[in-house]
C-alpha cells in the first residue's frame, strides 16, 4: 500500500517576508494539510493568518470560529469575505522564540464546488493571554486549488524562523 501523506513543499524563513505562497500545487492528491509554526511582526502578543486561494479576492470565503483564552470561550462568524482569516498565531510581543502553531486540513481541494476546511491552532507563550482556536472554513470558488498565499492579518511580515509545510494526502 503506498504512502499517502507526502510533503509537497516547505518554506522556513531565513529572513522576514510579507507573504508565503505555495503555487503550482499538483493535482495528484485528494486532500491538503498545511502545518505552520509562525510569528508575525505585529506589536501584540497575537496575530492571525489569512489565506487567499488561487489569487481569488472575491467574496468566496467564510468561517465559523470557536476560541478559548483560558478563562472564557467565544464564538464568531464571518461570511462572504475575501480571505480565510482569524487563524491565531504569535505576534511580536509574545515571549521571545515562541511561535504560534496550527494545522489546516483541506479535503477535496481539486473539487470545483464549495470546499470545507478546518484549522486548529494556538499562540501559547507562557506569559500573556493565549488563545486556542478551532475554525471551520468554507471556500466557494469554482476552480481547483492550485495556490495559497499566507499573509499576517494585522502585521506586515512573517518573522525569521517561521515555517510552513504543505502536505498532500491521497485516498487511494
Amino acid at each position: 500500500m503506498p504512502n499517502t501523506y507526502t510533503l509537497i513543499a516547505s518554506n522556513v524563513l531565513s529572513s522576514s517576508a510579507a507573504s508565503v505562497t505555495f503555487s503550482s500545487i499538483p493535482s495528484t492528491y485528494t486532500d491538503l494539510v498545511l502545518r505552520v509554526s509562525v510569528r508575525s511582526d505585529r506589536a501584540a502578543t497575537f496575530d492571525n493568518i489569512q489565506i487567499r486561494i488561487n489569487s481569488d479576492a472575491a467574496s468566496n470565503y467564510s468561517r465559523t470560529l470557536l476560541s478559548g483564552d483560558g478563562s472564557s470561550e467565544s464564538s464568531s462568524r464571518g461570511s462572504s469575505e475575501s480571505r480565510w482569516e482569524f487563524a491565531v498565531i504569535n505576534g511580536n510581543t509574545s515571549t521571545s522564540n515562541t511561535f504560534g502553531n496550527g494545522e489546516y486540513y483541506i479535503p477535496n481541494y481539486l473539487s470545483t464546488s464549495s470546499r470545507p476546511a478546518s484549522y486548529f491552532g494556538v499562540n501559547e507563550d507562557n506569559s500573556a493571554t493565549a488563545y486556542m482556536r478551532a475554525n471551520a472554513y468554507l471556500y466557494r470558488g469554482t476552480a481547483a486549488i492550485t495556490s495559497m498565499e499566507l499573509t499576517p492579518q494585522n502585521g506586515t511580515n512573517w518573522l525569521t524562523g517561521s515555517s510552513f509545510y504543505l502536505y498532500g494526502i491521497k485516498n487511494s
Partner: protein
Amino acid sequence: MPATYESIATQTLAVGASSITFSSIPATYTDLRLVFVCTNVSGGDQAKVTFNGVTGTSYSQTYMYSDGSIADSGSSANQPEVNIALGGTSTTIPTFYTVDVFSYAGSTNKTLLVTCNEDKNGSGLVSRAVGLFSNTAAITSVTIAKSGGTYAVGTTATLYGIKNA
C-alpha cells in the same frame, strides 16, 4: 522511511445511502483516521459513528462547539453512538468531519478525537470532541450513519491507517 499513513479504503457514494461501513479493518496499524465529507439528500442532521456493530451504552463524549454566536461545551455518557455532527449537514454545501481512533487494535477501551467543520457562509457550526468507546475488543469495522434520511451522491469517506513504526 516506512510508509506510516496509508489509505485503507475509500468510498464515494454513487447513489444516496443512509450509512457507510468499513469492515475487515486490518490490525496492522496503530491508529485510525476517518475523513468524511458529506452532503445530505434529506432527513435528519445527526451523523453518528459506531464500531464493530456495537450500540447499547458503550459510547461517551465531551465536546465544545460554536455556532457563530454561542460557544459552549457539554458531554454525554452511555450513548448508543458518537455523534460527530452537532449541527446539521447541508443538501448543497459539503461538511467535513474527522474521527481519530487511537490504539484501535488494542485490548483497552478506545479513545477518540472528533472534529466537525460545518461552515455554510452565514450559518453552521464548528466543534471538537473527545470520545470513548468502552469496549476492549479490537476495532474491525466502522459505520457512519445518519439519524434519518440519506447522504447524497458524492459523499466521500476515507479510512486511513497510521503506524507508529
